[in-house]
């Protein structure tokens, strides 16, 4: 993996090479390689037509590319093409699952989650509980933020119908042993839903090996376009899942008496004109990742994380919350400095980090602090950038400098 060569493929990096720009907010979104941008433009400039049933050549081309995109996504997660639904993003995928399962849930059923989950992995279930009368239960997390198989077993009851967890936590970067967790869920006849927003961009995903029932992720965190995401479901479950958007492109027939027949999955869930350019662009991004190699990416990002942690541990003004997790997320605070003031200081020196609760508003129950600064690395980041970041960490006490710059 030649990082310098890879960096040249990202216009956000080359266009900003004159000023200092260190982008450490990759858990929020990622820069796009030129090939992804070109692929989207290709759709808009060479075969811009709607998919489904076009009776002319460019519509056929659009159909073919859209279909090919689905195949590439399937390959990326080791699924079959018909198990891949395009959505607007991870949030829509998770909402689609939650609302689509309502008819299979009843009062007093239990849904297991954790306090570390992102809002999009929690709030749809809160709503479902309001509607159906089922209950949210929280699985205990260990000191690294992981859900251990033992703790999941303890939380399971005969009322547990769904276990919904992130593969990789978006604040701590912890990796859950999803395969073991899914097995426990299945032994108890519960469904296992895996939010892959923070794992799909950073490690090899094999949904067959993990044996999860549903797996979701966003395109824009995988170096692809915004507004496109993926919902994977085992086919027999996609057949049971109710669509929550109805319209053109998802029905087989309907009459004046209100009878409607839906198309089979995945089309059943893709009402209306889809984000065609987005799907095609996402597929290009995933090919780009596969070319670099997911194992290479994981290993390199793990190296960056370890390097950053070792440097931060030498500083006495930094509080670090997740030194043991393997992925490229560092959650920390500068002692005595409100997280947003800290993030502003980094911004003053051209470093992009994020402050706050990172959409995981229950996480203070685990960390004991409300706000953290999150630096999140990916494969186009370098140890030199981390060295620079460490120098700015040392300036923590001068956080108002940012305001008088």
């Amino acid at each position, binding site marked *: 993996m030649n990082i310098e060569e890879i960096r040249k493929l990202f216009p956000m990096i080359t266009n900003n090479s004159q000023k200092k720009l260190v982008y450490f907010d990759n858990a929020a979104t990622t820069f796009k390689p030129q090939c992804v941008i070109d692929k989207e433009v290709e759709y808009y400039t060479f075969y811009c037509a709607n998919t489904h049933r076009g009776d002319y050549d460019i519509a056929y081309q659009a159909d073919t590319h859209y279909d090919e995109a689905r195949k590439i996504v399937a390959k990326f997660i080791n699924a079959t093409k018909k198990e891949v639904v395009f959505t607007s993003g991870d949030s829509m995928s998770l909402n689609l699952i939650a609302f689509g399962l309502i008819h299979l849930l009843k009062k007093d059923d239990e849904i297991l989650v954790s306090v570390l989950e992102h809002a999009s992995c929690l709030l749809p279930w809160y709503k479902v509980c309001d509607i159906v009368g089922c209950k949210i239960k929280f699985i205990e997390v260990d000191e690294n933020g992981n859900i251990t198989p033992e703790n999941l077993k303890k939380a399971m009851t005969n009322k547990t119908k769904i276990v919904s967890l992130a593969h990789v936590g978006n604040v701590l970067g912890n990796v859950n042993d999803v395969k073991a967790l899914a097995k426990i869920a299945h032994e108890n006849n519960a469904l296992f839903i895996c939010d892959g927003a923070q794992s799909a961009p950073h490690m090899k995903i094999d949904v067959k090996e993990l044996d999860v029932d549903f797996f979701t992720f966003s395109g824009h965190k995988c170096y692809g376009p915004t507004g496109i995401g993926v919902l994977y479901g085992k086919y027999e479950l996609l057949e049971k899942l109710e669509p929550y958007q109805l319209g053109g492109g998802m029905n087989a027939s309907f009459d004046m008496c209100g009878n409607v027949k839906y198309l089979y999955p995945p089309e059943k869930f893709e009402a209306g004109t889809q984000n065609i350019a987005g799907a095609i662009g996402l597929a290009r991004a995933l090919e780009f990742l596969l070319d670099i190699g997911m194992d290479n990416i994981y290993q390199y990002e793990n190296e960056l994380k370890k390097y950053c942690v070792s440097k931060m541990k030498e500083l006495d003004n930094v509080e670090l919350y997740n030194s043991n997790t393997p992925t490229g997320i560092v959650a920390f605070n500068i002692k005595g400095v*409100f*997280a*947003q*003031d800290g993030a*502003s200081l980094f*911004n*003053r020196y051209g470093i992009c980090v994020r*402050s*706050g*609760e990172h959409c995981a508003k229950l996480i203070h129950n685990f960390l004991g602090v*409300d*706000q953290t600064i999150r630096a999140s690395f990916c494969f186009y980041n370098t140890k030199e950038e981390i060295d620079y970041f460490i120098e700015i960490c040392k300036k923590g006490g001068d*956080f*108002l400098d*940012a*305001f*008088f*710059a």
Partner: protein
Amino acid sequence: MHFSLSNEMMREIIMDHYQNPRNKREESDPSYQTVYMDSTSCIDKIYIQIKVEDGIFKDVCWHGNGCAISTASTSIMSELLKGKTIDEGNKIIDNYFNMIHEKPYDPEVLDEAVVFMNTSRQPSRIKCATISFRGVRRILGGNEDE
């Protein structure tokens, strides 16, 4: 006179209000109007409480958590509006928003609040510096656009 304030002095004023915020308390008296201010672009969570009587800000207080900029600007706002008429208060808020956006403003009416004159150079902090002023505007029912 305000223009002679050095960066160092402005910095000290901000730090003083951040570390010793004025009028920071939670008021349970129902005659106070309360607004809760937060936003997705900012991690501050601030409650502003005002008591208006005979067209005058009889009291202004606040509670919650925020960064240095939002805490200090809220503290300064509370001192600035207390005892003023609604019209005077609105004039202060208008001038403050103008200052933040580098439009012509009257520094005399802003008093200590001029320490935030540099905010426009740090656009990501505009929400922090204006949170309490927008909060008061929301209670008064006026234009919240900075």
